[in-house]
């Protein structure tokens, strides 16, 4: 790109400075946010960056007038950020950005109203994205990536600024969501807890008053946390909330939610329609669902093995694995139904051998002891009503509702 002339560079820089001070004085958050969102690569910012790189002494322009110099703390690092970002030096850019953001926060704290929230959102978003990219750069240089962590602690600071009483609290959830993203990415999920507590225990502010998009994001992440904790009802609640409030046009978001909601629902005994899986391209679950329907233990295990990596990464592997008991239940129920068709009077007595044989047909090679153990577990977990007679090796089923449905309740554990 051809370098602008000196005058041109000068003009662009002063334009930017003027825009900034105008936006602040007019409390025009839209244009302010625009001035900050460098990652949008808007042409005006790009040309400004070129001008800055050409016109090395931008700081002089800042100091030139009081109008700008009062924001010198903000503007100087901002210029440096733009310069380094333009040059592709992301680590330096991150450093400059952190300085800039800190200075801005300082200023923001002093503003009574929350007019600049949008600009703050931009900053919270930009710092996360920039940190991720800087980390990538660091990692490729063989250094330890730590910028995202730094961004996390910066956002905690921002959260502290927002979380108190007052009009600025509305912005807290957005920052929280950015924090969640960082923590999930870093694998330091335990850090979420303090933020969550602060959001959920504050009675002063109704959760519903937060912006909807933040609520959905928040519910999605907290729902995921509940999945990790295997607290399925809570996970169901949160993820369902996210699903219902999510913008139906955002299919990617819906898919992300479903990715966790489906296993949760499965563990609660609720199976999805096949078309849902197809629509959102979640076919990795289809075999699992099939296995649950048929009581096909082999199919379940194959499905788990096939998508092991994916399930492990998303963290639903253990959840899906626990579906095994439901599959057993289904299998036993099928045996029971067949027996009942043959001889209704003795249908409630299931011989262990029969079950072992059925499992053998599924190529599940288990001996009596093992199957007996599984039967006792099924009874213990209330997936099967009845008892096991050890002497005769028979599962004696209850006459009433021997296979209670979960109906949205989790398996006893």
């Amino acid at each position: 790109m051809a370098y602008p002339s000196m005058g041109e560079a000068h003009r662009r820089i002063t334009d930017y400075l003027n825009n900034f001070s105008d936006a602040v004085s007019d409390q025009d958050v839209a244009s302010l946010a625009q001035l900050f969102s460098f990652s949008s690569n808007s042409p005006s910012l790009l040309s400004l960056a070129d001008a800055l790189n050409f016109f090395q002494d931008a700081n002089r322009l800042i100091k030139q007038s009081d109008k700008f110099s009062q924001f010198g703390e903000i503007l100087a690092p901002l210029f440096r950020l733009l310069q380094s970002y333009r040059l592709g030096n992301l680590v330096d850019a991150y450093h400059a950005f952190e300085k800039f953001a800190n200075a801005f926060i300082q200023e923001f704290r002093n503003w009574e109203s929350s007019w600049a929230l949008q600009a703050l959102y931009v900053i919270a978003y930009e710092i996360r994205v920039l940190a991720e990219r800087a980390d990538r750069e660091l990692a490729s240089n063989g250094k330890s990536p730590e910028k995202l962590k730094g961004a996390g602690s910066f956002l905690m600071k921002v959260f502290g600024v927002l979380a108190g009483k007052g009009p600025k609290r509305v912005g807290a959830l957005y920052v929280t969501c950015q924090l969640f993203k960082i923590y999930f990415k870093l694998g330091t999920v335990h850090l979420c807890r303090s933020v969550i507590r602060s959001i959920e225990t504050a009675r002063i502010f109704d959760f519903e008053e937060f912006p909807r998009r933040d609520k959905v994001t928040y519910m999605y992440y907290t729902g995921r946390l509940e999945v990790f904790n295997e607290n399925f009802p809570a996970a169901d609640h949160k993820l369902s909330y996210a699903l219902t409030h999510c913008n139906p046009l955002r299919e990617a978001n819906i898919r992300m939610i479903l990715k966790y909601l489906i296993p949760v629902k499965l563990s609660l005994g609720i199976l999805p329609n096949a078309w849902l899986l197809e629509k959102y391209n979640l076919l990795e679950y289809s075999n699992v669902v099939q296995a649950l329907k048929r009581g096909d233990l082999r199919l379940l295990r194959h499905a788990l093995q096939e998508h092991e990596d994916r399930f492990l990464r998303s963290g639903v592997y253990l959840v899906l694995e626990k579906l095994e008991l439901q599959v057993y239940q289904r299998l036993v129920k099928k045996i029971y139904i067949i027996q009942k068709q043959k001889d209704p009077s003795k249908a409630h007595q299931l011989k262990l051998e029969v079950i072992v044989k059925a499992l053998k047909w599924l190529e599940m090679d288990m001996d009596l002891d093992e199957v007996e153990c599984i039967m006792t577990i099924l009874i213990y977990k209330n997936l099967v009503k009845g008892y096991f007679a050890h002497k005769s090796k028979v599962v004696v089923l209850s006459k009433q509702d021997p296979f209670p449905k979960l109906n949205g309740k989790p398996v006893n554990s």
Partner: protein
Amino acid sequence: MMNQATNTQTLASLDPNSVESRYVVNASQGQTSSYVPSTAGSEAASWNMYRVDNHSVENGSFSNSTYHHVQQTEPSTRTVQDGSNAASLATSSSLGTTNAQPDYSGYNSYSNSTDPYSYGSTGYQGYYNGYQQQPNPSYSQPVGAYQNTGAPYQPLSSFPNTGSYAGPASYSSTYYNPGDYQTAGGYPSSGYSHQTTTWNEGNYSNYTTHQYSNYTPDTTGAYASGNAATNSLHYQQHYKQWSDYYNPTEVSCAPGTENLSIASKSTQVSQVPGVSGGYATSNSQAPPSFTPSWRPEPSSSQTPSLQPGATVTGGYDSYWKHGASSFQNQHPTPVQQHFQKALDSKPSYDNFQEQQKTACPQGLNLQYPVAQQSSQSYQPPLQTVQSVDTRRVSKVQIQTNPRIASNLPLGLPKMDKDGSNNNTTAKPAYISVSLTKPIEKVLPNDAADSVLKVGMFPKSLKNYVERALGQCEDEKQMAACQAVMKEIITKATNDGTLHTRDWDAEPLFPIPNADMVDKNSNLQNPIPVSAIPKYKSPTKRSKSRWEPLPEEKLLDKLDPVNSYAAKYSSWVHVNEKDRKPAGASSEGKTDIMNSIRFPLMEQKSASKTVQRPVKRQRLADGNAADNGDASSDSDKEQNLTAYYSGAIALANTPEERKRRENRSKRFEKVQGNRAQINHFKAKNAGSGNLYARRASAMVLSKNFEDGGSRAVEDIDWDALTVKGTCQEIEKRYLRLTSAPDPSTVRPEEVLEKALLTVQNSQKNYLYKCDQLKSIRQDLTVQRIRNQLTVKVYETHARLSLEVGDLPEYNQCQSQLKILYGEGIEGCHMEFSAYHLLCVIMHSNNNRDLLSSMSRLSDEAKKDKAVQHALAVRAAVTSGNYVMFFRLYKMAPNLNTCLMDLYVEKMRYKAVGCMSRSYRPQVPVSYIAQVLGFGSGMPTNEGSDEKDSDGLEECVDWLKAHGACLVADSNGEMQLDAKASSSSLYMPEPEDAVAHGDASLAVNDFLTRTSS
């Protein structure tokens, strides 16, 4: 002359074993021969011829016979070594490096024991091993290999010869060490301080001789390494060895001995005597034709010589210091010596390198080929005998020799000559005199240096010493004389009458009873026949080598400090030059020499002398463990001080630092190539580099404090990593509250031994844990992160698992994770299985479990242990107790131990489940079977018995957990499921403690672990 003396001595004293004595003689002869040529100054050609002749004569009669005898002795020595040594022996044959260690271990074990004999025997064994390894019984062969080198090779050959020479020296040194050690053990404090006790005296003399021997070895040491290299096929390797060698040698006798022994082994023991002969010739043959060959030697020796020289003096200094406080001032003088040496080394260095280049290629090829020539080495002895005699008589010859030996003068005529004038005058006395004289003189010099700083000993005193020694008829007497004279001089120095007294008029003391000395010698050389020869040979040699030192000292005094810097710089230049032209191998060598050697000195000096003078005392006192090293330690310190100033000069320039770092880097690369062959050496070398960096950093920091000219940022704090010098194998763990002290930190080789000791120890877990922690600490402090580190952590992790010490295990596990992450090999799979099990059963954190599962590689998933762990996980998450206890029974590795910790929980859950699911009853026998009761250790005994055991245990367990048991009509115990379902409880653990962790209760822990 010295040789002769020794020979005679050996004969006399060692009467019992005539054979041995002979052997000794040979060795000594070889050495002497070397001297003879030097005096003669025969030309190169003549030299070769000469050798051959000697060889023929010698071989025929002497060498072979001796050799046989030696063999006979073998068995006995072996027995001594036995247990601990056996391993070492085996290893020694395989790798040079490994060899060193085993020997060392042997050494250590002996060191503990007060028996001088045992010690000697060990050394001998090592020696012996070398013999055994050689396929050919003939003594001559190995030697031949060395000497064989063609004309081009000659420089090298001279090298090898010296090397062989060194071999013996090392031998001797080892012997000496034992002696020292023993004495130290017996009289820890006295050993170092010069006390009036005859014993000490004896030690002292030994010590001096010992040092002397070291000195020689150093020069030879280089050679030896060369030899080793040739033998081992890899020239470069040799060098590494060499470097290794240097490190230890410099510091302490013990390490040196180790290395030496190694070298000798590799080269073949037999060489030693013969070689020495060759060596001597080379030195002596200063004449023009020979110069090239000659130079290399000196140069090679030079680098080493620097150290040795320093060490020797240092040793003396330390002695003196201990003995009399007045002497402590000596430090400055050693420094000076240092410098001079450095200067000297420089010229020689160049030569050396050049020669190396040429020599290296040939060296490789030549090594074994010529068996015939080997005989040459033997020749010297005959001559030597004669020459020795002559020497004694004529002081003049000797004088020349010393100079030559010192190398310095020749290489750097300008510098040395000036200074040497004084020396020459002084020297004759020492030289002419047998061993005792040199020693004594040295001592006085030191004392004088220290006290007066001007450093002139009254000439009259020297004369006096000469006279006194002149009385003596044999070595024993001389040793005795020495002792007496030492006393006298010390006394005089203390009194301050040293310079005022009229030494010329001083009456000579009566010749002390030689028996005293004998005693000493007996103590030291206990006697295994095999041991004796070695012992003696060193002494002889040491004398000859010794001579150069005094000169240096004198020079030092004369030279202003300024000169050092200049010299040093010159040295540096040399290095640079060397780098460029030299081939990889030579480079490696030089590097080693530069980086390792130097740094060592620096560091020590910096750390020990500067930082904690107090320590010295401790060291000097000499723990039994320190043994050989202890003595060397004190030496080191002295040397260090000496080097310190030099170090400063060196380190001052940032360029130099950079240079050195580059050098070390390069060195590392070279190492990398050969890394497979000798991990060990590589490590050492690496540590050497560390050393260097640290040393420079320390110096820098010191400078900063002193001059304030340097910015703090310039200090490479990484370089401050400690390099340990402690030779103790056992060490209690103590959490550091200050910067680690190198003298209490064990270097890697020692740590390796320590690990072995712990692994083989029968003591309880507490002890082992303590030891392992201290090993870990030493590793951490030295930033050693390699397979040894992994091994240590793995060992500790396993141990703690066996005992169920989870906190300790977790520490190890987290370290192991990092170490594996760095790509260091170990039992990765085994430990990822442990990790999985740990997460599954003890952290109850699904996220952790998921992440560690997702991190498992496909390869890991195929591993048996990991598969087992995954199966256990499945069993646990599904509550499948049957599966769990099946897996429990067939758990690989220590998976059982981890599962053990979960058994109680699992059983409780299972019984809860059973009592809920079964109606009306479950037989206890079934429960016992399914829940793994009584099957903890599968036995071959009848299954009935086992079952009943398990049954009982199960009944007890069920009762303890509140289950309702009833007997059915057959008298079989049944679990009343319905009644139990509401009555089950988890009993309070009897050993519950307020803070929740029973293992924290010390008493409980003690009782548990000591069982």
